[in-house]
């Protein structure tokens, strides 16, 4: 048996389809007699007619779907949390996510965004794998969009990025609080916003404690485990090595652990280490467990989805378009007082 249609209800009730629609959708300001109304309701009941979600979406001009367009986000072990944050918020509001990975290719991006728009998503979350400044695909100009972990180079699209400066300030503050004065920074050599933001936080924390900035204590390498190893070796082989190292991310911290072990530095007795990211597979798994700064991917995804839903449902907002998501310190076991 095919789904009953509105015209079936109209035929059974002996009225026109418009009248059925008016009654079933409780349209205001149209007069329908009580007797006709009842006949329509009975007919709808008898046929098992119900306005279905697709029909409803035609009426409201909303599909209650949100496009989640990303470069390679789902394949990184921790950034999948962004999707989860967005997914949960959308689901609770009755929306579903359409997931699209573009592989970061601009042409694929433009094409997939146009495809999504054809399917009439109500809005788009445009996410990148790590904090970047991006040129927004031009196809997004016609749809409500929120950027996730990205700042637009032009225009004022709503966006959420981690508060790198504040996160680094907290991390270095933790080391200063433990009594350290010679604090190294093993950082990423690429000029990405996270690197400049965290360097800013590092220098600001030193300045606030009256510790002079020493360029020799900043070692820039690739932001991965081998890079962290090389950076930490360089710092620890200085004539006067630092007593603590703030690492750009947890992978660099992992390399730093190895360098420390090879050179006979015990953590945290001889060397304190703080990471960044709070990456599940690394930070709690290292021994001793790594004190680090969390990159709140889940919260950023949830924030972006809430903001997008507000735009879709025309909730007015007074806020600035950009939101800096706080990065909290996660205290574990890799920070202690400096050695005597």
């Amino acid at each position, binding site marked *: *048996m095919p*789904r*009953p249609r509105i015209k079936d209800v109209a035929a059974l009730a002996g009225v026109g389809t418009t009248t059925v629609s008016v009654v079933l959708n409780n349209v205001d300001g149209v007069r329908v007699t009580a007797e006709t109304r009842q006949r329509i309701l009975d007919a709808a009941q008898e046929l098992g007619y*119900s306005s279905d979600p697709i029909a409803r979406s035609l009426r409201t001009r909303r599909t209650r779907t949100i496009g989640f367009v990303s470069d390679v986000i789902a394949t990184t072990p921790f950034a999948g949390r962004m*999707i989860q944050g967005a997914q949960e918020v959308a689901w609770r509001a009755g929306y579903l996510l359409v*997931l699209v990975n573009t592989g970061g290719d601009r042409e694929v991006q433009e094409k997939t965004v146009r495809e999504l728009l054809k399917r009439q998503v109500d809005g788009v979350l445009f996410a990148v794998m790590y904090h970047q400044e991006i040129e927004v695909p031009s196809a997004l100009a016609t749809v409500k969009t929120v950027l996730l972990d990205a700042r637009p180079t032009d225009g004022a699209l709503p966006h959420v990025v981690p508060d790198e400066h504040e996160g680094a300030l907290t991390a270095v503050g933790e080391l200063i609080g433990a009594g350290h004065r010679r604090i190294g920074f093993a950082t990423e050599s690429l000029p990405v916003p996270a690197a400049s933001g965290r360097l800013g936080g590092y220098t600001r924390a030193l300045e606030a404690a009256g510790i002079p900035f020493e360029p020799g204590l900043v070692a820039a390498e690739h932001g991965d485990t081998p890079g962290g190893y090389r950076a930490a070796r360089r710092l620890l082989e200085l004539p006067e090595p630092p007593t603590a190292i703030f690492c750009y991310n947890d992978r660099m911290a992992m390399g730093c652990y190895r360098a420390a072990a090879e050179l006979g530095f015990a953590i945290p007795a001889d060397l304190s280490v703080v990471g960044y990211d709070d990456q599940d597979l690394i930070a709690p798994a290292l021994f001793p467990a790594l004190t680090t700064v969390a990159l709140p991917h889940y919260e950023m995804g949830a924030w972006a989805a809430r903001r997008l839903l507000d735009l879709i449902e025309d909730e007015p907002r007074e806020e600035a378009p950009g939101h800096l998501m706080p990065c909290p310190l996660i205290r574990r076991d890799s920070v202690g007082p400096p050695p005597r």
Partner: protein
Amino acid sequence: MATMADVAREAGVSVSTVSHVINGTRFVADGTRERVLAAVESTGYAAGTLARSLVASGTKSIGLAISAISNFYFADLVAALESQVRLAGYTLLLTETHDDPEEELRVVQALHQRRVDGILLATEAQGPGSPSLRYLSQLNIPTVLVDRCASPRFDQVGTENVESSAHLVLHLARRGHRRIGMIAGQDGLSTSTERFQGYQAGLARAGLALDPRLVRTGRSNAETAEVAVGALMDLAEPPTALFVANNHMTIGVMRALDRRGVRVPEDVALTVFDDFEWASIFHPRLTAIAQPIREIAVRSVRLLAERIADPDQPPRTVRLRPRFMHRDSCGCVHRTPRHGRATTSHDADP
């Protein structure tokens, strides 16, 4: 041929209630829905016709119901499925089941309501009787069970778990281990059961008796696994080797062993299920079973496309052979890997 009215009579409900259940158009109380589904089954209501009408009104979209929170491996699988689904000309609607039977049913219903052409489901079901599987089979919704092969009444694609687990256990036994412990996954998941069967088969082939004291559940998460491995190491005669049934539990196991000063593989040898991007940077590098994630995605989407095209063909189960990544944690290779040195992994027999 049975009509909707027959189903309604059989279930003792109104036709519209039957319609709501079948079309997923409105919430229907659990007991009532069950009665309707039972009546669909007993009257042989034309579910095939229904499925065809869904095809006709297809939205060129596929729903994915998975608990991504439960595993990194699922995050990779989601990415692989998305690219296959897109290549096949569909878009992917993502939903989260939280590995909870109620939520799984709700998301399956929500996807059905959106008129997806088919559903990819990583089910927590332990058999065909689960609410979501009954819903899917009785409404004949094109479905492929992904990763967890819970019911031969569906198309399903997963890793071969039994033989590959047996392989990891036998590998340890051939190195002379007699007390091989297991940290098992969440009870009830089909993958947990199969990996435990593999553990038993491996022991049997090595001529070792199963000692139940050496098996603890880590409930598929790191924290429980940490406690579980602690309990094993506190035994009067602790195991000399461990088989760990998934990646999250491996993290917990490594952490617990580190904390106790137990060295791998010198004091305890380790083989684990699930390879992951980071497995080679653990010290020591992990000897692991790598699931063929891309292949699972390719085959799942292909089966689903075929099921959508022909809803009435008999269901098929596809079991894919994983890769054995022979590294250091099993104790076979005794050297300290230095940083930056190229790592080698290869297929090998035990």
